[in-house]
């Protein structure tokens, strides 16, 4: 477990709330009530109901026998891909929309990159009867038309962000700007463990369900602790969720996998921890891809969900404390891992999750090791990318069944 101090700092250095005065009261009001609400019985009852019956939790902890054979150790997949809407994002979306209801808010806004968090938030808003506006970079809307349609079918209004570089970080800026103009009625549902305090902690609490389940599921199998937990890191919400219960146990290696894009030295990367420097974006201090003048650099990853220039402050802390190991995976390595999983285990993973899978190729395991890979999402949304790359990877001449 890990919590920030009262000002939102992890290890006195990362996190905090670097927000203009116009946003201060929004943050303060949220900070004042969130802990009490989310630990109340009334909230927990509702939240657990929706997690179980709507999102489909607990998700299986699947003993992947074929992968285990391949790597010569025991590999488990935590199947977040089987969550409703296709990824772990629903854990946070349901929690925050419910929290907004408990706070008496009348409207939800959120940002989205690839659309996964947007779809999760739109679903949560539909079932919990909250009006919903999703900010999405103009460029991302063009790249992810199906998710735009999904959000619209679910009743959300999708607002194009035309500021800055018209991608995720700009959608986040615009969502925050909109929140500033209506702080009383609106709750902003941020999509990862980023943003000003208390968001990193709030989202961590909701995603920690992943490792709480892992612990119970291992206990049921009579297994003590894993030796490794591997997860991809965009903002870092699925990773911290999978790590959470094991942070205080040094015997469990925590492996955070960043998107190297075209290579961490290529200038086209999203590996904030590997090549970034501490800086401020979206209200918190954390590792950030930036130039020498402190201007944020547009990231690159084939996976839209990892295509973010920053990373949650909790990961910067774990990284500097050497409590987690950070690996980075290039676009092509992730694509290969995705195709490999399809053939090996019959699961089409999200491109984000494929980064975590690719990382185990780079690690050495001993026979008794027990490795858990957090399979954060399913690959439906990435079929277009997979289609574009199959030639490159030699998967073209698949024998036809007919």
């Amino acid at each position, binding site marked *: 477990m890990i919590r920030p101090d009262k000002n939102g700092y992890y290890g006195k250095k990362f996190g*905090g709330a670097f*927000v*203009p005065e116009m946003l201060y009261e929004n943050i303060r009001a949220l900070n004042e009530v969130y802990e009490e609400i989310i630990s109340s019985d009334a909230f927990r009852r509702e939240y657990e109901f929706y997690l179980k019956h709507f999102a489909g939790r607990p998700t299986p902890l699947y003993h992947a026998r074929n992968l285990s054979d391949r790597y010569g150790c025991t590999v488990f997949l935590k199947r977040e891909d089987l969550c409703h809407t296709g990824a772990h994002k629903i854990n946070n979306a349901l929690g925050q929309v419910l929290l907004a209801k408990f706070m008496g808010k009348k409207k939800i806004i959120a940002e989205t990159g690839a659309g996964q968090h947007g779809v999760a938030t739109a679903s949560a808003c539909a079932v919990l009867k909250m009006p919903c506006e999703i900010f999405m970079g103009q460029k991302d809307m063009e790249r992810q038309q199906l998710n735009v349609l999904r959000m619209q079918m679910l009743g959300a209004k999708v607002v194009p962000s035309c500021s800055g570089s018209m991608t995720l970080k700009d959608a986040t800026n615009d969502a925050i700007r909109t929140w500033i103009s209506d702080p009383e009625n609106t709750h902003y549902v941020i999509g990862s463990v980023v943003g000003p305090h208390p968001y990193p902690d709030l989202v961590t609490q909701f995603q920690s369900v992943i490792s709480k389940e892992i612990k119970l599921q291992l206990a049921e199998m009579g297994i003590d602790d894993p030796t490794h937990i591997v997860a991809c890191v965009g903002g870092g919400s699925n990773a911290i969720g999978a790590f959470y219960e094991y942070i205080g146990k040094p015997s469990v290696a925590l492996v955070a996998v960043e998107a190297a894009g075209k290579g961490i030295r290529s200038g086209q990367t999203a590996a904030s921890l590997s090549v970034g420097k501490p800086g401020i974006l979206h209200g918190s201090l954390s590792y950030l891809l930036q130039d020498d*003048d*402190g201007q944020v650099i547009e990231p690159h990853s084939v996976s839209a969900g990892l295509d973010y220039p920053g990373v949650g402050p909790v990961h910067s802390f774990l990284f500097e404390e050497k409590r987690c190991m950070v690996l980075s995976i290039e676009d092509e390595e992730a694509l290969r891992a995705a195709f490999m999983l399809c053939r090996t285990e019959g699961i089409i993973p999200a491109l984000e999750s494929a980064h975590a899978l690719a990382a185990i190729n780079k690690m050495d395991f001993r026979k008794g090791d027990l490795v858990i890979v957090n399979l954060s999402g399913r690959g439906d949304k990435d079929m277009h990318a997979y289609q574009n790359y199959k030639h490159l990877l030699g998967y073209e001449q698949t024998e036809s069944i007919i």
Partner: protein
Amino acid sequence: MNKLKALFKDKTKKRLSVYFTAGYPSLSDTVRILEGLQESGVDFAEIGFPYSDPLADGPVIQECHKASLRNGMTLELLFSQLRDARHLAIPKVLMGYLNPVLQMGIEKFIDRCRECEIDALIIPDLPFDFYERYFSAPMNEAGLLSVFLTSPSTKPERMEIIRQHTTGFVYITSDHGITGSSVNFEKQKKYFQKVREFFPGIPKFVGFGIQTGEQYNLACRYAEGAIVGSAFLKHIMEFGTHSTSIKKFINQFRYDPGSN
């Protein structure tokens, strides 16, 4: 003596300040705009340095930040321009987001401000704990005044903290919004009055949303003056940065106590 402090000594006049983003429309406009503002009788200038992610700004200033960065503006370059503008008597306030300052290094940044005879600093996303820990002492030493923002949602406890830390002036943001939205005085009357009463001895300026002479006059009822930003930038987008263009714009904002 600090030029802004000297200006505030004379309490009989209402003041006008103009914000612009350095590096816009072109990289070399900084000194020219400062000259134009001085010639037009603007009381002090707010010089914005650009950031890729200006969270508290609306479309007009966002666009200026973007263009300025595209033009190649950096803090180092801005300071070299401001070094050449020291002869201009107009008080100068630097305004921008915290990250470029952190990357330059706080000490070096404040040193440069001193060299360039900057009078005050506005960093909207600088929290008070951070200010106290890293900025307050070196700023005092360098003779740099601090400016903090209030918004309609600022609570009295928070105003108290603002009062304790302000050595320059209080920046009254006019609405629940970002820069460039138009101020609604009827709606914000109570808030302006509250702020006026809360900071009796400290100069106060209304900023965000002042677009017309009429709004400027109204703002002056509650404060020592007002700051015009987006409207000025829109004007130079259309009419350029030569001194007649700037004068024409500034002439709309002459305080007229009779008009209220």
